[in-house]
């Protein structure tokens, strides 16, 4: 089902300068929110992007839709480098690249009615006469499972799931090729999450949409994604197809994330072992040298602070032609970790820090 590469991001970085002084500004530091990220998405695919809070997921998404100016790197969308587009060309690009936000209430203007909200993109791009636009809004309402009588209501009259549906209808208004979903369901109840995810999947099947899907909920990402990418402190630490990554995570951080996932079955939960990471995520103002995860990694060794591990697969995965890659000198070999003994084995390469 994978088609041509629709989005190719190379070495994308977004640094926020930290300045001091009102008149004579001087830069006292740089917050490296996203630091040299590269990836590709093929048409019709969903790339899931996971990572804990503050790892640069949302910054990456905003750079991709050009809500933030990337510091360096290139973003090739439909064969065109959009990282430096301006004016009319930027507007034309935006028609095809929409975004859905996390918080469905604050992303809807409280003083606008649903029809105004959904037809806003139509107004901006002069879609047609008022009657044509109205017909399109009704069509979109139906498409996302809202009713025509919702046409004239205000956002505060809706439930969370319905608001997110409004956000989706609005993103679909101009028939985009790709939608960046920034935590689209994390503000919703679990049952409503499922409905919205199903809606997104249906729309993808119907219109051949491509998604960049950001979430911190691993199960949500597993459900929607074709490929998954794990971020830590502004960088990608592991990526692969969904099943490769969930069935045999190789990077210790991915393994820790997966082991921390809540288990629905209480019996399984009792025997489940977790890899507990020590400490907090280091400050992106001053990330650790070489491997950024080494300060919290149970497997870290001397080498990790000297040589930056590159994203690459093992000889076997490369030979199999799999796209599974990780950035670690001492990847996890065995998964799942069933007993504490396994964890000790998995961490056995740890020779002291």
């Amino acid at each position, binding site marked *: 089902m994978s088609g041509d590469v629709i989005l190719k991001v190379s070495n994308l970085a977004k640094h926020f300068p930290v300045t001091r002084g009102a008149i004579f500004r001087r830069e006292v530091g740089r917050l490296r929110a996203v630091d040299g990220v590269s990836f590709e998405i093929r048409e019709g695919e969903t790339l899931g992007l996971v990572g804990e809070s503050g790892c640069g997921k949302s910054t990456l998404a905003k750079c991709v839709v050009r809500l933030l100016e990337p510091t360096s790197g290139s973003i090739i969308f439909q064969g065109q480098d959009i990282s430096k587009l301006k004016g009319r060309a930027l507007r034309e690009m935006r028609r095809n690249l929409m975004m859905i936000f996390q*918080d469905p209430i604050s992303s809807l*203007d409280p003083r606008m009615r649903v029809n105004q909200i959904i037809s806003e993109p139509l107004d901006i791009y002069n879609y047609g006469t008022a009657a044509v636009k109205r017909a399109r809004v009704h069509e979109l309402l139906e498409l996302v499972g809202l009713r025509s009588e919702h046409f004239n209501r205000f956002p505060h009259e809706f439930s969370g799931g319905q608001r997110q549906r409004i956000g989706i209808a609005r993103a679909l208004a101009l028939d985009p090729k790709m939608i960046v979903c920034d935590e689209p369901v994390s503000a919703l109840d679990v049952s409503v999450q499922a409905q919205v995810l199903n809606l997104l999947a249906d729309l993808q099947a119907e219109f051949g949409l491509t998604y960049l899907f950001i979430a911190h909920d691993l199960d949500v990402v597993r459900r929607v994604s074709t490929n998954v990418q794990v971020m830590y402190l502004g960088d990608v630490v592991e990526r692969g197809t969904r099943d490769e990554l969930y069935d045999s995570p190789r990077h210790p951080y991915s393994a820790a994330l997966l082991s921390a996932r809540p288990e629905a079955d209480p019996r399984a939960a009792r025997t489940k072992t977790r890899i507990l990471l020590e400490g907090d995520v280091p400050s992106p103002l001053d990330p650790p040298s070489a491997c950024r995860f080494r300060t919290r990694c149970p497997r870290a060794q001397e080498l990790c602070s000297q040589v930056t591990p590159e994203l690459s697969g093992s000889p076997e995965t490369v030979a199999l032609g799999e796209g599974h890659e990780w950035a670690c000198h001492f990847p996890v070999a065995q998964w799942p970790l069933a007993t504490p003994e396994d964890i000790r084995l998995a961490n056995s390469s740890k020779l002291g820090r």
Partner: protein
Amino acid sequence: MTETQVQEATQSRRLLARQRKLRSFGRLTKEFRTDTAGVIGGVVLLSFIVIAIATPLLFSSDELDRTLQIDQPKLASPSGEHLLGTDDKRRDMLAVLLWGSRTSLSVGLAAAVFAITIGALIGICSGYFGRWVDAVLSRIEEWFLVIPTLPLAIVLVTVLGGSLRTIIIVIGLTSWAGSARLIRAQTLTVKQRLYVERSRGLGAPHRHIIRRHIFPNVMPIILANLTLTVPVAILSEATLSFLGIGSFERESWGKTLEAAHAASAIRLGAWWYFLPVGILITTVVLSFTMVGNAVERVVNPKLRER
């Protein structure tokens, strides 16, 4: 659908929209009615406005012409014939006051609208565009904030000539800066909202964002500010007239005070010459302020908890 069905559908939709508007208006007025001071101010203000509008029916403008009043007593104290006495030009004080209220209220309103228009324009531009636009506009604002208003107004009126229009312009020019500040601040917070960012992500031009998102969301602040600027403008008008640099065309409250001063009304004990005017000015200014505070509380839910 047939033609008539479509028409019916549109009609019912319009009806629904109208009902909803009425309901939300009802909610706001209900909120307003819980504010006793605001209600009192509103009632007082409303009666002032009604009387000002009806003045020509009560007193003909001939009453103001001193050449037609030679048969009247000079500086007479209140009586059945002249409820508030007469002034040194033998005119009926009540007529003078009511005709003056027309000028004072309309000049106050017009000047406030003018001031808020400038303030909103500059505040929104400065808050929305930021950077050097904000820097330049903010410096201009500060200049108008720190400069002593009265001397500036006196100079401006002297230069531009003392017509009613120049008074309005001068008051507007000297009192927009404060509201520009407030509107700028509100614009800054609205600008950061997610829906503005999303609109930007859609490729919306600045004009669209300002008109569709920023303006409707700062409108409540603009309204509250307007009602709070009117009393300031009325006072300014009275001040300028009292100083003798107001409009020479029409009677106004400030001018009455000035005339009372010139006629040494206090020394002569003609309290009806200056007291009612003073009370009127104070009452109108106070009720405008009370209404303004109530409006501000209604449109700004954050103030309600206090």
